[in-house]
């Protein structure tokens, strides 16, 4: 075990674990949005999909367990890396300046914390259903009605959209960063990575945000 500790508690090992768990979490987001988009197809489609997931409890719980491990690992090493970085510059510059670091790259800790807060709220909202008495009271399981009811409220729809801004920023730096951290760097594909990373990140965020927005605006009823 001391070998393992040595391998991950250092500047590169910690980042490698964050990269691997980051890919896993992004994979979850892709799967999640693919399912969620069924809301645009109609009540039957999304309810059948939600019902379908429930047919395979073992798979569902294995996926949840994997996600939880990835999530906790990602956050643990994020804290480790951030504390090391804060300690590495005890005295800040009187005149601080930035030459080329992007806004997304400089706000990873902030967007990460917004995502964490959002995910807790989101689970309470739609998975445990404890934030909204009307949703809690819905006897029969109807994902479509639950989501519609949730996003008709401006505060709820608005906070989802704000969280999606955080996710878009986080991923637009994160996806390209994974390649650099894992050493996947070559002139043949560097440009593609630096373009596609932000494009995929923003794309995922826009697709997610489209659901609360179109329900709030009454495009989906």
């Amino acid at each position, binding site marked *: 075990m*001391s*070998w393992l500790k*040595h*391998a991950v508690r*250092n*500047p*590169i*090992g*910690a*980042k*490698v674990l964050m990269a691997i768990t980051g890919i896993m979490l992004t994979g979850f987001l892709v799967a999640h949005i693919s399912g969620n988009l069924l809301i645009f197809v109609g009540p039957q489609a999304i309810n059948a999909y939600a019902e379908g997931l429930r047919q395979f409890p073992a798979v569902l719980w294995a996926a949840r367990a994997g996600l939880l491990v990835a999530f906790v690992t990602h956050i643990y090493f994020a804290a480790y*890396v951030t504390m*090391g*970085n804060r*300690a*590495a*510059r*005890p*005295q*800040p*510059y*009187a*005149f*601080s*300046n*930035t*030459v*080329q*670091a*992007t806004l997304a*790259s*400089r706000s*990873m800790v902030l967007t990460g914390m917004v995502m964490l807060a959002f995910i807790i709220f989101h689970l309470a909202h739609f998975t445990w259903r404890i934030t909204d008495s009307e949703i809690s009271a819905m006897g029969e399981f109807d994902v479509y009605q639950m989501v519609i009811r949730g996003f008709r409220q401006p505060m709820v729809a608005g906070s989802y959209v704000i969280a999606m801004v955080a996710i878009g920023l986080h991923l637009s*730096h994160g996806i*390209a*960063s994974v*390649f*650099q*951290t*894992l*050493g*996947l*760097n070559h002139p043949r594909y*560097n440009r593609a990575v630096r373009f596609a990373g932000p494009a995929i990140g923003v794309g995922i965020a826009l697709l997610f945000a489209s659901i609360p927005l179109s329900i709030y605006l009454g495009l989906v009823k």
Partner: protein
Amino acid sequence: MKLKLHVWRQKNKAAQGRMVTYDADNISPNMSFLEMLDVVNEGLITTGEDPIAFAHDCREGICGSCGVMVNGVAHGPQDATTTCQLHMRSFQDGEELYIEPWRAKGFPVLRDLVVDRSAFDRIIQAGGFVSVNTGSAQDANATPIRKSDADEAFNAAACIGCGACVAACKNASAMLFVSAKVGQLSLLPQGQPERQERALNMVSAMHEEGFGNCTNQYECEAVCPKQISTDYIARLNREFIKATLTYPDAKK
């Protein structure tokens, strides 16, 4: 030219420092930045004040000792240029300049703008060398090296160890420096026997000296006077991952 300077003044390592404002008059645009400081210092000496301490040696961009922050940018505003090679024509008449030492836990301030960069020496001692027996010189080209490898090793070897990468990094990380040294030697045949322990030991040494972690923001390559690319950091990550997974001594 006339300038207003805000300069970090600190008596010694233990003392509390602060920014002090000076007027710099009669500055020629053809002076180098260090010559400008020399002129200011002459003025300070005639009025009986302590001159501003700054490190310098070659004044031709090769020794790496002269780095300071100018308005929050390591080595000042001109690309691919050390502070000693920066000229006052890069600034406007009447401009205000904030001049500060490198800021990092690994680079403690010794006096004014001078920092202790011996942490870099200790990182080099941890693995930035090749162990070969001395003897008469080998014939040139006796050891074949692929042209692209030789070029890449040469680009990494351009690093002068000035510390601008650390100073510019939001996390005060020394990854660009370490990656240049590891990259250079890992590309050459002479560096092969110690390749894995070099990557492991130099990264550990960097960590122990209190430098931060790379978050792929690439501020370092933007200020590097020798334009070392962050591609070397990806190469270092690769070297480190491979060494961690395959190094024969499992303890390391």
